[in-house]
């Protein structure tokens, strides 16, 4: 009575694939649009006064208020040093390009451990710092010496990945000459340290 077919699974899988592909084809523009909308809402939450966000490059936006003045920057940074792979961070910089706020988005860190980097006790060490490798931690001990905070306990990798992603974001917002200027500034400090050692 049963008319079974040995190719049935193959046929089912093929039809399923077609169906899913069709739906995706129909809706992928809508998905992109929704993502973009969410992104804008997120950017707006960092700068409630901003009227528009001007695109500087692929990952950086200028927040401009009603009078046309730049009140800050939104930069997307990425690092592959996270515990679960890639870590995406959205960084808000104030008008002097110092860190105002940041949020880890789209990540694979452990909930309850790695995700604690979004908590205020960790964030407060970064506030007011410049997003470059001179002022932000590169190794575990840097957190205390440079920022005066401890990395999130049990999540050193996530903490370092955040720092790395913010440095990456910094590279995207600073223009070439500004970076050179910063390096010069740092060499001055080097001299001071050199003197101090003797």
């Amino acid at each position, binding site marked *: *009575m*049963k*008319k*079974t*077919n*040995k190719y*049935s*699974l193959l046929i*089912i*899988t093929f039809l*399923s694939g077609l*169906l*899913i592909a069709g*739906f*995706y084809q129909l*809706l992928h523009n*809508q*998905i992109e649009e*929704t*993502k973009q*909308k*969410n992104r804008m809402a997120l950017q707006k939450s960092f700068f409630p006064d901003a009227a528009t966000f001007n695109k500087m490059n692929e990952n950086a936006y200028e927040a401009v208020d009603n009078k046309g003045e730049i009140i800050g920057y939104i930069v997307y940074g990425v690092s592959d040093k996270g515990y679960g792979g890639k870590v995406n961070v959205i960084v808000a910089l104030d008008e002097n390009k110092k860190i105002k706020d940041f949020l880890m988005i789209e990540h694979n860190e452990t909930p309850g451990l790695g995700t604690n980097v979004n908590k205020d006790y960790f964030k407060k060490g970064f506030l007011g710092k410049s997003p470059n490798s001179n002022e932000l931690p590169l190794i575990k001990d840097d957190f205390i010496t440079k920022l005066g905070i401890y990395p999130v306990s049990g999540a050193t990798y996530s903490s370092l990945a955040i720092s790395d992603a913010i440095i990456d974001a910094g590279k995207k917002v600073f223009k070439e000459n500004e970076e050179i200027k910063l390096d010069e500034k740092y060499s001055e400090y080097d001299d001071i340290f050199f003197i101090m050692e003797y």
Partner: protein
Amino acid sequence: MVKKVSNWQEFIKGLYKENPVLVSTLGLCPTLAISTQTINGLSMGLSVIIVLTFSNLIISLIKDFIPNNLRIPSYIVVIATFVTIIKILITAFLPDIDKALGIFIPLIVVNCIILGRAEAFASKNTPFRSVLDGLGMGLGFTLVLTVLSFVREVLGSGTITLKIGEFGSIIDLAPLFKFIGLVDENGDKAPMVFFLLPPGGFLVLGFLMGTINYLKRNIISSLGFIKKRVVKSDGK
């Protein structure tokens, strides 16, 4: 001897008599995990209704076509197809829900209610009855999830969230909390956060199961519902 069950009974059994959560205790993982906001329970339930109904229909249609030892992979493929479609739809139109339910939408694929109904019912019954069964079971699941998340949200956060995207609203129960006297030292409402945590979920679910059992034993049997059915099956 096969008991004759009317279409209506096939539909209604999922609501109380064979309720997937309260009686069969299936699908507890999403039930406990997402039932912290009313809207989450409701939307999860609706997603399950859609997936369950369609997968029951398709599986019932193709049941004679699938060799016996290939049936589980085939069911999973069918279920996964509908879950993926639901996931695409939710990501496109309801990003808030997508954020709240997160991994639990893709995990509907391995929800034991759906696979259970496919194996126990849809693979042995006609498409029409399978759809009724899917709708009934899905509605039962949704009902439990909604009640559970409603109770947990009211007790745990003192709000009722009925907001999808820009529609609906969040009802704040602060006046009620102040009226009862559940306030902290600043005079703000002090909801019991315990109910948002897993133990609170278990507790509410336990009370819900107890209530249903009580109703079944006392109220429904006193209405003569169960007796009638016994007489019927004896007569056959």
